[in-house]
């Protein structure tokens, strides 16, 4: 199961980096979203995927999921949600000001 998750996270990373290298701003933002999904899957996998009792410490439970990665993922998801929404607003404003959403066309705009 860990292998499958690793491959999935790896392909998310690959897709995310491919998108990050695109010229269109919206694709770049989607790329960062994919990257953060990949990172979250990684955190989940790194804590070992166990089945069994909920992450509450009891003496009887023989196998339980590690609660820490879940807490980390939750924090990280909230942060990436906030940053992505900020980026989308920023991209919209940049589009309004610059009349383009292609990164390569932003080069020539020296306003000094």
């Amino acid at each position, binding site marked *: 199961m860990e292998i499958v998750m690793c491959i999935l996270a790896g392909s998310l990373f690959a897709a995310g980096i491919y998108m*990050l290298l695109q010229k269109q*701003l919206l694709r*770049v933002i989607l790329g*960062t979203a994919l*990257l*953060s999904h*990949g*990172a*979250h899957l*990684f*955190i989940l996998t*790194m*804590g*070992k995927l166990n089945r069994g009792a909920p992450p509450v410490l009891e003496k009887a439970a023989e196998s339980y999921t590690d609660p*820490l*990665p879940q807490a*980390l993922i939750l*924090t*990280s998801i909230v*942060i*990436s949600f*906030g*940053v992505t929404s*900020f*980026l989308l607003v*920023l*991209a919209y*404003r*940049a589009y309004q*000001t*610059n009349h383009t959403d292609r*990164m390569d066309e*932003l080069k020539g*705009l*020296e*306003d*000094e």
Partner: protein
Amino acid sequence: MSNLVIIPILLPLFTAVLMLLFKYNLNRTKQAAAAALLLNTFYSAFLVYRVFSQGPIVLETGGWKAPYGIVLVADYLSVLLVLAANVVTSAAILYAFHTLEQRLQKFYFYPLVLLLLTGVSGAFMTGDLFNLFVFFEVLLMASYALIILGGSKQQFRESLKYIILNLFSSILFVTTVSFLYSVTGTVNMAQLAERVAEVEQRGVLTGIGILLFIVFATKGALFPLYFWLPKSYTAPPSVISALFGALLTKVGIYSILRVFSLIFVHKLELTHSFFLVLAALTMLAGVIGALSTNNVKLIIAYNILPAIGFMMIGIGTFSADSLAGTIYYLLHDMGIKAALFFLAGLLAMHAGTSDLRKMSGYIHSAPVLGWLFFLSCLVLAGLPPFSGFIGKLILLKSAMLEGHYTVTGIGLFSSLLILFSVIRIFIGAFWGEHQEPKHPIPKTALASAGALVAIGVFMGIGAESVYPWIQIAGDWLNDPSGYISTVLKEGAE
């Protein structure tokens, strides 16, 4: 009693949130910001006194014992940096009162600055690697908003680069923390240090260390990863550039200093000699950049890089003296970089342009600005008896003692070029035919820059009284067992 530690983080946070309630009342916002910062600065000074007289303080948040919960640690290094960050932010607020457009001040400038300070202080104080990521995000989020404050075309272009690059490195940070967790089973820095030491940093751990280094090097703008810094730091108004130049890259350097003096210290010949090479390259790239442009703000922004190179020499050399030198240089650079950005901003405002070729003879209309600029150039370049000299002396001497002659030579050479690049501004802007200034210089802004330069001068002339404190912090960093036992022993009680 250990709740003392969290006040410098909470005070700016709460003030910032409260300020949002009366955002249209600019006067009250200003007063609240000034009061909160003044209080926080005095409080941090008290914390410095307290930590140096009674030892480091650890707060286990929520009462969870050390390796399990999140800890905040006020040790010798972090309290000094928190104090410096508060001083710089107070100066920035004073500078902003009369230089920043009213429109921008109204747009949440003060709350955002306080949130930035929250993130910076938190990053300095946290004893937990994942928590460091969280505070990084707090300060980055505030910086994202600050860098586009005003919304000009140039700002949009540069801020997009800045944000996307930082976002990528944050994602890399989370991934690296999860790798580290899977190998060691903890994210608490003290316990990480213990566990990495147990296996003598074998195998994959060095790889993880280098990954972490790449993350921090991106934030701290080290050699191959600095390309985003100069232009994006010059895009926003100069007070924001000053805050970024003084605080943000320093958080990256602090993280490298902490992680590579506490956790990954068992493969010195691999990691730390690699740092020395990067230090040399960063210094050269910085001075070449500073000499390549005629934009005053850009020259100052490029001058951030050689300073980072100097601090990396200290981390790479890795002896008690060189670490103390790094801390001294870090404190010196926070003050003087902010002062230089302030002065360059005032000069650009006075001249109505930031192009050096269009300036001349402003010594007649702005004598105080001119001489202050001259003085800060000397402090920056490291002429005796100012603070830059003492910092460079300690760093280069300890590098020499360890036999790193090439990097020392490059350091000396780049100091010379730093002096040349900033004196070029002084000669170009203040000598020659007098030109009509466009805008008078606000006295308060000049005073805040003057105060920071005065601190630099004091740190140099009064080095005898300042340096012993920094030496304590350097010794503390050089011997990680103090940090580990302080954090983990409280958990055993």
